[in-house]
């Protein structure tokens, strides 16, 4: 079959509407973020396939049933990959349903993890291994914490001090996506300064291998709660199966979560999944119910007295300077 392919940077008005409608007909939901979109149409101009590039993630890949098996998906993915390379993005990722895993495998993607009705794939066979090789290794009994630290509070400091006292090496992964109020660079600096007194701690950049709520696309999972569960299951499976064994991590520490439903659900999944892989989950009661969102609220209001009570001096100094 003949088809024409067109590429659009950004999306607005009728094109956006066309995409949204087409995705809807394929049981997918447009949830924003398409920087660059490929449209595939027949000679009559009827839309038969789409795909978008969002940062380094390929999203919204859908092909009309009449064209399936005709290499339409390959044409779309091909265009998106070439565009990504032109933009200097070489490490590419995608999330899909298990039934599409085989197709993406034939397009040069490799599975990082599969769980909860979703598959996470990367366009390199050795991307994750390279990341794991690049991490500083520890010894003895080793534990891990994954945190965004937006910004680093007395609560984070307490959690890390308590956890570090219970293991020989504590690995702290700071989420490296730049989707928070504070940039990754600032957040990392705050953690570095705030944990300088803890001798057995190793700080890492989370890289692309820890999936947070902000990157996980939910567009292909109908039910919102199911999507959240798929997100945490995928993230935890990847951690338990690949990351923890590479570093020798056998304990994962986490603060109790009295406020946020999503985070609390994540902690529950952690307790369900990690022990299956021999990783003990240790919940540490949150110190004085401090939360980073409370700090951000106080900062927003210019209430520096409250901020001062919630963060270490090292954090206070940096964020008030900004």
């Amino acid at each position, binding site marked *: 079959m003949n088809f024409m392919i067109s590429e659009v940077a950004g999306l607005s008005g009728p094109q956006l509407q066309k995409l949204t409608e087409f995705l809807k007909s394929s049981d997918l939901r447009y949830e924003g973020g398409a920087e660059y979109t490929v449209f595939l149409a027949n000679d009559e101009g009827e839309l038969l396939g789409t795909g978008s590039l969002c940062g380094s993630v390929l999203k919204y890949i859908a092909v009309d049933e009449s064209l399936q098996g005709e*290499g339409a998906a*390959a*044409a779309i*993915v*091909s265009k998106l*990959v*070439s565009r990504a*390379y032109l933009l200097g993005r*070489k490490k590419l990722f995608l999330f899909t349903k298990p039934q599409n895993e085989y197709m993406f*495998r*034939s*397009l*040069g993607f490799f599975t990082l993890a599969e769980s909860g009705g979703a598959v996470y794939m990367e366009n*390199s*066979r*050795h991307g994750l291994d390279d990341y794991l090789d690049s991490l500083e290794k520890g010894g003895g009994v080793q534990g891990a914490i994954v945190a965004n630290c937006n910004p680093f509070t007395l609560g984070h400091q307490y959690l890390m001090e308590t956890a570090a006292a219970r293991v020989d090496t504590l690995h702290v992964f700071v989420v490296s996506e730049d989707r928070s109020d504070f940039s990754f660079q600032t957040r990392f600096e705050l953690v570095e300064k705030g944990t300088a007194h803890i001798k057995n701690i190793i700080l890492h950049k989370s890289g692309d291998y820890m999936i947070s709520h902000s990157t996980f696309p939910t567009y292909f999972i109908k039910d919102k709660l199911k999507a959240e569960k798929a997100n945490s299951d995928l993230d935890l499976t990847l951690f338990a199966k690949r990351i923890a064994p590479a570093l020798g991590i056998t304990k994962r520490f986490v603060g109790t979560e009295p406020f946020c439903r999503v985070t609390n659900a994540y902690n529950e999944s952690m307790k369900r999944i990690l022990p299956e892989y021999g990783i003990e989950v240790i919940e540490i009661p949150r110190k004085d119910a401090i939360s980073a969102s409370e700090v951000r609220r106080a900062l927003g209001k210019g209430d520096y007295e409250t901020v001062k009570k919630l963060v270490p001096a090292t954090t206070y100094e940096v964020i008030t300077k900004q």
Partner: protein
Amino acid sequence: MNIITTGVAGTMESSDIIVTVEPKAGEGIDLTLESDVMQQFGKQIEKVIRDTLAELGVNSACVSAVDKGALDCTVAARTMAAAYRAAESTDYVFNEVKKK
């Protein structure tokens, strides 16, 4: 030829191949091939890629290729283009692609 960055050439459309050439620590060619016709032509495609790189004097690279049934001449041409791009070289020597 020294591989200093990532170079890509080709597409994933039918009868084509997309070849990605990246720098690698140490000697040797680390090749990953994905092909629709792996059973029938996997070894031959791999040979064409390796021979083409050897002719260009590339002896250290990470190469991944996704083949959609490309002919040998296409495989060689895409490999050459990807290698030149990865070497950031424009000193093309347009010899006729040798029959393999």
